[in-house]
């Protein structure tokens, strides 16, 4: 802090001391059209003396005689011009084309963008989303064609669902593999968005194949910011960012007013309560980030950062507080032949959550009920409650149930690189991702929904996960003969994951105050609504890989790789898998003059990737805990009670990885000296050997031919085939001059050929194959709609189709007229997966002002609106629960709520996802590098015909705990959806030298 004050003091002093000996004037123009360039930085070399150009590109600066001026502007080549006695210096700035052919991070290294022959997208700082971005994936939302990042609703604690090129798996992990600075499978929780330099997305099979059996869902490579390198002089830079965000409820579900509710026969408790208003608030969040980076000029550079976030949710008692610290240190030695780097981050998170059912009750709870019922004794909070079916005061629910999470992440990555020869580099990398945390839950003695039955119930769960990875690579490059360069990568890797934890749930508390912090205050620790467990698992993945890249005259490119992997979780008959890839491309502009076409690279690739079983023990016949066995049958004598065991699942020695093979044909193009650039990709993917928990009935079955042993009804097996395809398009115009304003539009869109189910065959057990999979958990739910699953996956059809009766009208009694009540006669009435998605970002720069806004949307997807599906009909229950009254509601329906096409809505939407206006204060001094203030807004508006909470695509069913089922049930908006929010952010960014 003292140093910081000194710096500020120095700034003040230095701004007053200028050695003005000569005045230089001039105009800076754009080389392409001679228009004036505003906001160009001009600096007297070797000093801190400088200025920026005005609206027309003119400038005036006092400098020492004989000095050199440095002209710099984002997106343009920096120029150094010695004065040479002149007093007028006009400069033409040329666009920096090399910046567009930047280096792209690929698996185990980087590659020049021009050499890339597979589908890889790279997103840098300037393209990231704006506003209160709390997690790394939000930076990318909508920015990369084919990459869907969804976080429906406004829960500050909910993670995102990430899908690359649609849904391509269900039993296995459907989220792309995350690699942070080379640590494979690290958690995104390790990184604060502020610390990210670039995110690269390996989209196609050939790019991801170097990650073998974990690459099928795509790979996202996160590169964190590092200290300035390469400078021969000592440098230091300090960046400070801070912002405040206000969130407010953007969208909820319209219901009847208290008067309307009573008028339709609702029970009148005499009050008038807006329950949504009572559950929510305008939430205020704070974020601050400080980063210091630098270099000593002789081989050491570093960057250290601290990020603090305190986020409130719009629902009471929700929010989080997080601190992220990160240190990166690089050291070169032996004339830069030996390079060491260490990257360490430590993060701590505290979260508070409520039971999401509070949102449902806030919508449908009786609007004439008061919050408090003063007849009740105050010890229970005094809340109004009635012991009715499915009827809980939402404010009581949010206050009398308490869910808390604390988590610590440590990510350590150490790397040594040594140039054995000039063209042969050895690298050894050790990465270690540790995550520890605990969850506490408490249901008060007075919580009508659950806690009261147990007289206060507390739960605490601790977990400890460790992922260690050791990699050795050899990188060799040579020119085989004239103009033919070859690069060979050889690697070996071993990765071990350990997972441990335990949990306890106890009940019956005299004092309602302590909860999970002292479980000893409970009196009942065994039996119903109590729990004790612990677990410990380990798995090892060993791999070897080789990749060769060829570049002929920067015109023809070829890349081929193969990775072999052995996993401890594969069945004993299937221990090792091989994942090959090949890709090639040709830069046509090097072969012929194509006029305005400045870049035209045509490429094609093929790659095979895999997906691991979701648990390392699925192939084995293991027994978990079973029934309690009481030898004498008398529960009062406890010295003869033991816990038996039961088979978790049938063994499957042929269990192996899921396989995806993908063909991608793409074009990278540029026009007008790459003023306009973009990419087009077509892809086709075939997925086989899907990992799936087959339901196998008791008794003889192909996994237990004798039928004498099996007590398990599940066997994990590789079944079925899927195909999917798509078309991706992106285009950027790198600075269009609209008079004094520079405009950079970027557009991307994806058209999906949605995933089709080819078959659900079971190799080796043909009798277990099936044609249709009804997802039991996709039923609307309680009350009364538990047994009519919405989602069916039918061979030959699209994954995740919704089946149901078609709504045809209303009869004179107010009952539905439906096409059929027989589930076997239902047809497809929707699909939750989108036909396409798009993003459109715009950046405008005018003098020191910058404005950008980003529109994003998805089209052709449906959502089941569960609020309407349960609470729109004015049936008998609408006396108890408030009626949902969207513009689609028809008050004539008085029949029992029944699922039909009436409640499946097209959820196509366009959203102004974020917008930001910034201003760079025209200040320069020898300490202050930049000072920018900005205002940002998120979710300013959404255009959609959907009448639920959030038209965002639902790739997963949020109500289903079974991962496979959840993945197979897209398009269901459940009643527990957190209300969406609109947020406004004010921030400052200060850079110090």
């Amino acid at each position, binding site marked *: 802090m003292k140093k910081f004050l000194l710096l500020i003091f120095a700034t003040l002093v230095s701004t007053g001391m200028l050695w003005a000996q000569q005045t230089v004037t001039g105009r800076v123009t754009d080389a392409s059209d001679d228009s004036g360039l505003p906001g160009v930085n001009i600096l007297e070399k070797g000093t801190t003396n400088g200025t920026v150009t005005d609206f027309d590109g003119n400038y005036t600066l006092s400098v020492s005689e004989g000095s050199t001026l440095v002209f710099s502007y984002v997106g343009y080549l920096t120029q150094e011009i010695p004065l040479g006695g002149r007093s007028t210096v006009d400069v033409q700035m040329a666009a920096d084309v090399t910046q567009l052919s930047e280096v792209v991070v690929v698996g185990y290294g980087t590659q020049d963008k021009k050499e890339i022959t597979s589908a890889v997208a790279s997103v840098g700082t300037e393209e990231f989303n704006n506003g209160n971005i709390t997690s790394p994936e939000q930076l990318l939302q909508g920015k990369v064609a084919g990459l869907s990042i969804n976080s429906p609703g406004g829960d500050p604690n909910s993670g995102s669902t990430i899908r690359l090129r649609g849904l391509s798996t269900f039993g296995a992990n459907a989220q792309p593999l995350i690699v942070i600075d080379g640590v494979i499978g690290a958690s995104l929780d390790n990184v604060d968005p502020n610390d990210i330099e670039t995110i690269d997305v390996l989209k196609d099979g050939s790019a991801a194949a170097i990650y073998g059996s974990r690459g099928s869902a795509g790979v996202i490579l996160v590169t964190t910011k590092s200290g300035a390198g390469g400078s021969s002089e000592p440098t230091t830079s300090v960046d400070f960012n801070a912002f405040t965000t206000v969130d407010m409820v953007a969208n909820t579900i319209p219901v009847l007013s208290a008067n309307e509710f009573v008028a339709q026969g609702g*029970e009148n408790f005499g009050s008038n309560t807006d329950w949504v208003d009572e559950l929510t608030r305008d939430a205020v969040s704070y974020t601050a980030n400080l980063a210091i980076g630098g270099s000593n000029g002789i081989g050491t550079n570093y960057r250290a950062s601290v990020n603090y976030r305190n986020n409130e949710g719009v629902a009471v008692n929700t929010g989080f507080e997080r601190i992220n610290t990160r240190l990166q240190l690089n050291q070169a030695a032996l004339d830069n032949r030996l390079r060491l780097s260490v990257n360490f981050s430590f993060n701590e998170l505290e979260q508070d959550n409520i039971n999401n059912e509070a949102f449902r009750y806030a919508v449908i709870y009786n609007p004439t009920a008061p919050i408090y019922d003063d007849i009740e004794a105050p010890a229970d909070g005094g809340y109004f409650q009635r*012991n*009715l079916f499915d009827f809980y005061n939402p404010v009581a629910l949010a206050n009398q149930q308490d869910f808390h999470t604390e988590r610590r992440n440590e990510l350590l990555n150490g790397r040594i690189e040594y140039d*054995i020869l000039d063209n042969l580099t*050895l690298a050894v990398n050790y990465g270690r991702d540790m995550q520890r945390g605990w969850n506490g839950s408490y249901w008060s003695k007075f919580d009508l929904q659950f806690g009261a*039955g147990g007289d206060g119930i507390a739960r605490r769960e601790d977990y400890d996960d460790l992922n260690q990875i*050791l990699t*050795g*690579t*050899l990188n060799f490059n040579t020119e085989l003969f004239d103009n033919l360069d070859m690069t060979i990568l050889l690697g*070996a*890797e*071993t990765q071990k994951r350990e997972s441990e934890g335990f949990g306890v749930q106890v009940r019956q508390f005299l004092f309602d105050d302590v909860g999970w912090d002292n479980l000893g205050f409970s009196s009942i620790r065994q039996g*119903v*609504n109590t729990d004790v467990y*612990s*677990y*410990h*698992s380990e798995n090892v*993945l*060993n791999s*070897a890989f080789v990749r060769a890249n060829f570049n002929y005259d920067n015109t023809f490119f070829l890349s081929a790789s193969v990775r072999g992997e*052995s*996993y*401890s979780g594969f069945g004993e008959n299937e221990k090792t898998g091989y994942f090959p890839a090949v890709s090639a491309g040709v830069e046509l502009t090097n072969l012929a003059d194509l006029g305005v076409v400045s870049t035209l690279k045509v490429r094609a690739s093929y790659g095979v990737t895999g997906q691991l079983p979701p648990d*390392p*023990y699925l192939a084995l*016949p*293991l*027994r978990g805990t079973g*029934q*309690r*066995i*009481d030898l*004498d*049958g008398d529960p009062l004598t406890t010295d003869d*009670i033991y816990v*038996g065991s039961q*088979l978790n699942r049938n*063994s499957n020695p042929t269990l192996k990885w899921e396989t995806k093979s993908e063909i991608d044909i793409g074009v990278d193009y540029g026009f007008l000296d790459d003023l306009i650039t973009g990419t087009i990709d077509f892809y086709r993917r075939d997925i086989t050997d899907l990992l799936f928990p087959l*339901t196998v*009935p*008791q*008794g*003889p079955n192909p996994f237990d*031919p*004798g*039928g*004498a*042993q099996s007590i398990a*009804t599940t066997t994990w097996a590789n079944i079925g085939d899927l195909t999917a395809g798509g078309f991706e398009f992106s285009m950027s115009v790198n600075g269009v001059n609209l008079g004094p304003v520079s405009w950079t539009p970027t557009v991307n869109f994806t058209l999906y050929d949605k995933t089709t189910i080819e078959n659900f065959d079971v190799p080796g057990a043909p*009798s*277990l194959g099936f044609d249709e999979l009804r997802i039991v958990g996709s039923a609307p739910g309680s*009350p*009364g*709609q538990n*047994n009519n699953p919405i989602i069916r996956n039918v061979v030959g059809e699209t994954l995740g189709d919704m089946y149901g009766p078609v709504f045809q009208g209303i009869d004179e009694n107010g009952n539905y007229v439906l096409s059929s*009540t027989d589930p076997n006669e239902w047809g497809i009435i929707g699909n939750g997966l989108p036909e396409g998605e798009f993003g459109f970002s715009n950046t405008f720069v005018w003098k020191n002002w910058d404005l950008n806004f980003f529109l994003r949307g998805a089209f052709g997807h449906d959502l089941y609106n569960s609020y309407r599906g349960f609470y729109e009909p004015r049936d*008998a229950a609408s006396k108890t629960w408030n009626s949902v009254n969207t513009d689609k509601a028809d008050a004539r329906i008085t029949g*029992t709520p029944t699922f039909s096409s009436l409640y499946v809505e097209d959820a196509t939407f366009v959203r102004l996802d974020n917008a930001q206006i910034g201003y760079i204060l025209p200040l320069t001094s020898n300490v202050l590098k930049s000072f920018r203030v900005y205002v940002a807004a998120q979710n300013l508006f959404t255009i959609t015909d959907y009448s639920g909470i959030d038209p965002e695509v639902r790739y997963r069913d949020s109500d289903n705990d079974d991962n496979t089922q959840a993945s197979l049930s897209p398009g269901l908006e459940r009643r527990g959806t957190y209300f969406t929010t609109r947020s406004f952010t004010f921030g400052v960014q200060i850079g110090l030298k």
Partner: protein
Amino acid sequence: MKTLYKIFILTIPLMIAAQACQEPEPEVFSDLYNDRVIETDDPTELAILAAGAYSNLAGTWGAHNSLWSMHEISSDEMAITQKGADWEDGGQWIRMHRHEWTPTEESINNGWNYVLGNIANVNNLLKSFGENEILNAELSTLRAMMYYWLIDVYGSVPIIEEDDETTGANVSRQEVFNFIESEVTAALPFLRQEATYATINYYVAQSLLAKLYLNAEVYTGTARWEDAAAAAQEVIDGGAYSLEPDFFANFVEQNQGSSENIFVINYDKDNAQGFNLPQMTLHYLSQETYRLQEQPWNGYSSLEEFYNSFDEDDDRRGSFLVGPQFSASGERLLDISAEANDPDGPPLTFTPEINMLAPNALRQAGARVGKWEFALGSPSSLSNDYPLFRYSDILLTRAEALWRINSGNSEAIDLVNMVRNRAGLDDVTSLNADFLLAERGREMFAEGTRRQDLIRFGEFGGTWWEKPASPEFRQLFPIPQAALDANTLLEQNQGY
């Protein structure tokens, strides 16, 4: 020197490569390998595992959506009415009531999995206890009891024994019958001739035979009335069991002292959970009557006609909960959500009459199952043990068998009167089919025997409230579709 150094450097990747090229073996910490358990020869472990054969029975008989639901809802004892949206559940309980079920019903699949899973468990134990004649006899009889459940519900099923490598084709109902009979008969000499609690003994085996023979005509086409009467007499002669003076002593929370319960599933709210009757039958508000830990589901109730088959003086009428309902502290319960057309209005009142089966049955309608005591503060799972064989059932079994042989048999009348007198009712002087069926109904309500009795008396295909006449093939449930899919050798029952 420099070369040496480079060679040294190069050994690092080689070391990693050496590690990386191994096929890693799974290391297990939290679970046990199957062989570790089923091949154990530790006598202490074995003894406890043998007892575990009984623990695994918990889960279905008193639980929703499995065997018990199939027995009860398909009979004229009980229904699950659809109360608006509540309990619509895809129409499965309406279909079950009207005998329109399909092979894909969840309950039918759950019932199958429950029984076959337990058979597999016993088979595993039999591998270990093959040498021990007494344990072998006990476990074989337990397995035979499960085949008795299967023959009754699914009919023709595969027989899977401990060392069997069978592929699992079904065998005829006659063969299943023969298997049960021979297994139990062979075990009899080794079984303990004394009252044991919740385990197999000689009298449990004889009770099993008595019930098997009683239904032999249904199962095989050949009546075995004499054998049924003889097996029941074995139980009576043994003297190990007797009628409890108080009918409800058999159903209280701590009913392990009952002299009448011959074989029970030994439920315990902590150690053996699964008997969730309060959830299944009670109204949401009944939570306050019994201070239940969880809100009940308001599902099962009895049919009015069945309720009315009980005399007003019949002690056993206490098997139902009817009339006004109160909180534990004596306040009248108010269901403010009561339907407008509910004649009783909000004050919670269980009425025997039910306005309709679906779609808008009144929430308060229907007599509830109150046969088992609901202890104050109960969790969703009860501690009351669930009788599978009860002494009065054996008395009525012998009575019926004797009556079938000779409708004027006086011993049969005496046996029935023993049961009636205990319920506070007067003697009868003659027996007929309708009376016997009704008496069994009153005595055995909610104990999962009604469907079997209706079939034996030829009434199962008849009509009752909200239930049309049903074809004969409905006397058996279908083999679940999932089992057929998994095992192509299985054949579906006729009619499905």
